[in-house]
């Protein structure tokens, strides 16, 4: 069963039978809000970009985003940039795969962020969500839907961090401003 997370809520990424997850996928989906009075050819497209920042004791070590699709160690992979959103009609538009077993041992947190590359604010985005899927069987583990857009251009969606021998996911849902993840660093640090 998928858990609908609220802001700040955390879930442990353990299977019911006690086995730990091996691979998860952070899926991101969004649609441009419908606006009246525009010509069909000018439907405004929104380019949101998902990024994953890998931290070792609060120091950023590696980042996976549309210009660096695979972390150097190969454990975190971005499936590719989607420039318009809404293609999945409720499915994921961008995905980041995390091979939890192969994440380097010193990486203890992975923060997932979303930025509006084209500069529109989240007011113009509808139905944005991020969800965590068990990649081995396609089951959704947790879903976090962005409540009401606001005057900001980025969201720090969630983090996955080590807890004991396993991993825990925490929904963060903090608004921020910036075009790419670099601009978000100051906003991310308080959450580590």
């Amino acid at each position, binding site marked *: 069963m998928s858990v609908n997370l609220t802001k700040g809520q955390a879930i442990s990424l353990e299977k019911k039978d006690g086995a730990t997850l091996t691979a998860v996928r952070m899926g991101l989906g969004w649609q441009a809000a419908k606006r009246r009075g525009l010509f069909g050819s000018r439907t405004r497209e929104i380019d949101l970009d998902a990024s994953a920042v890998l931290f*070792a004791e609060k*120091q950023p070590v590696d980042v996976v985003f549309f210009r660096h699709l695979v972390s*150097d*160690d*190969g454990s975190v992979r971005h499936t590719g940039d989607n420039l318009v959103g809404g293609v999945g009609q409720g499915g994921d538009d961008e995905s980041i795969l995390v091979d939890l077993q*192969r994440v*380097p041992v*010193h990486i203890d947190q992975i923060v997932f962020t979303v930025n509006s590359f084209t500069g529109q604010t989240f007011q113009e985005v509808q139905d944005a969500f991020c969800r965590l899927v068990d990649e*081995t069987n396609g089951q959704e583990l947790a879903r976090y839907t962005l409540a009401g857009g606001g005057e900001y251009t980025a969201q720090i969606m969630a983090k996955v961090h080590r807890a004991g021998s396993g991993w825990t996911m925490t929904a963060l849902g903090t608004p921020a401003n910036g075009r790419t993840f670099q601009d978000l660093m100051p906003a991310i640090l308080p959450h580590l």
Partner: protein
Amino acid sequence: MTAELVRGQNHPLSQVRLEIRISAGVPVLAGATLGDEHGTVHGAPWVVHPGAPTLPGIEVSGQAATDHRLAVDLAALPEAVHRVSVLLALPERPGGPLRFGAFAAPTTVVTGLDGTGIVRFTLTGLDAESAVVALELYRRQGAWKVRAVGQGYAGGLTALLADQGLPQPGDLAAQIQEAVTRSLARAIPAPPPQHVPDAATPAPMPSYDSPDAHDVPASGGPVDYTHSHRRTHTAPPPPPPTAGPAPDDQPAQPVAGDAVGWSMEERLYNQVWGMFEDLARTTAAYRSAVDFADSRLEKELDQVLSDPRSRLGTAGDVAREAAHARHSQLVDQARAALDRDLAQLTAESEVVEPALPLAYARWDNPVWHGYRAPAEPPLALRLGDLHLPESVSLRIPLLVRLPLERGLWIDSGPVAGPDDTIPDPAELRRLAMEAAVALAARLLAVHPAGEFAVQVIDPAGAGAQALQPLTRAGALVAPPATGAAGVTDVLGRLTRHVDLMQMAIRGGAAESLPPDIDTAQQLLIVNDFPHGFDDRAVTQLRYLADEGPAVGVHLVMVADREDAEAYGPLLDPLWRSLMRLTPVPDDHLADPWVGHAWTYEPSLVPPGSSILQQVLAEVTAARTKRR
């Protein structure tokens, strides 16, 4: 992961309730024979087929179909049954072609009840057969296993059943065929075939069927999209990319060819590159963890030093010890993760290396002993081995696509040896020439007879000793060119060759090439550059390096860059355009993902081995036969 089986390979089955999925390009009937511990099938009641589709523990479909799902419960089979042979046969049709070779290769997948794939086996290479034993499930010491069989019978179901030891196989075969015909009459007619050639319309590529016709260019058809050098003889439509990433709870057992591709050769190529990337990445993970641990240790030690409280008493020592303990704990963890991945890659390498075809195989691979000139050129070539200092014993083949996109430069200049000793310059030159000869021999051997030619420029004759394997076997087009005149002559001819080939390709007039132009691919080995070269020859060499690869003229330079110093920066573009290799292990190659420095080692013939002579003799013999 679904394990990809090759003929004869077996795989343990951990589940007893299975589904066997069969998909074929044409409706087939599926059945199974049950055998006892000696493999004997006790008469017709031990055969499950469309006319008698159910026996305890196994059920097949009552009709012929392109897709089958056979339900098997190994636990429910009678105790006496020790072997289940899954068979496929083409239903009899009046006037229909009764041969598997006319259709896409059938695929069988054994899955668990939840649909997760356990093994997959594609029955390639079938030709005139109309019945085939696809898989065999058998009991071995209480546990069940599956084996990929793929034994076809041109004599059809009758021959297959007779081979299983059944009395009156003809009657049973007729009974099975009749049951299929009956069910066909009941069934809704199938939609017109989309991609399966119908019996009435001849297959679009009939030339594949007759062994002597495959070299005839396809004519009559609108456009021939087939690659003129890549024709398969037996199974024209290659099976679709397989080895899907099906999840599997069991620890993945490495299998050779476990990657995507249209042929085993391509799958192995992709698998080797996959291993290369995995090793690069897992090492990057290890190095970044160790770097992090090192920098953290340094920071913590600095803190201890700058803290005035730690100057007194033992507090400082305790803090220092704690920092070191944290460091070694993280490094140990990182090492454990690396070791786990290395063990997996090593196991994979152990199954992949022996399975490699000629062009990818090391010279000590037994595949060379059974050498015969191949019928088609390979996809790629092994240039040597790569390894990283963290895992010296794990060698990844360095495979490059053929035809070579750029020339090679075997650097005979000073290279620091394994233990920082610089080998003697004369020795290095000899080793470099040996590496070039091994490479040339490999290229000659993996191309079909007469489709690859090697020429040598050895101005001072310094490489004569190393060139002996090639010269003695008569594998060269002409004796190595010596002296300034020889250099001018060979370069002049090759320049003209490239020029004419370019014109012919641009004009689409390959047939109007002068008769003395050999359309085979050419390899030019240049030793001792620039000895014996004048300015004109240097310009010609640069022309060959730039324009040659596109028309099948390749260059291997055996040279020390220092020797050509007199030319100044003039030759820099030439060196840059060549791929640099070294005659001794040297870490100068970077991978495309992380950029580690990999140690390259050429693929040399083991000392004392006569394999090179054997192979080259065979190459020359095949070439003479062809003429």
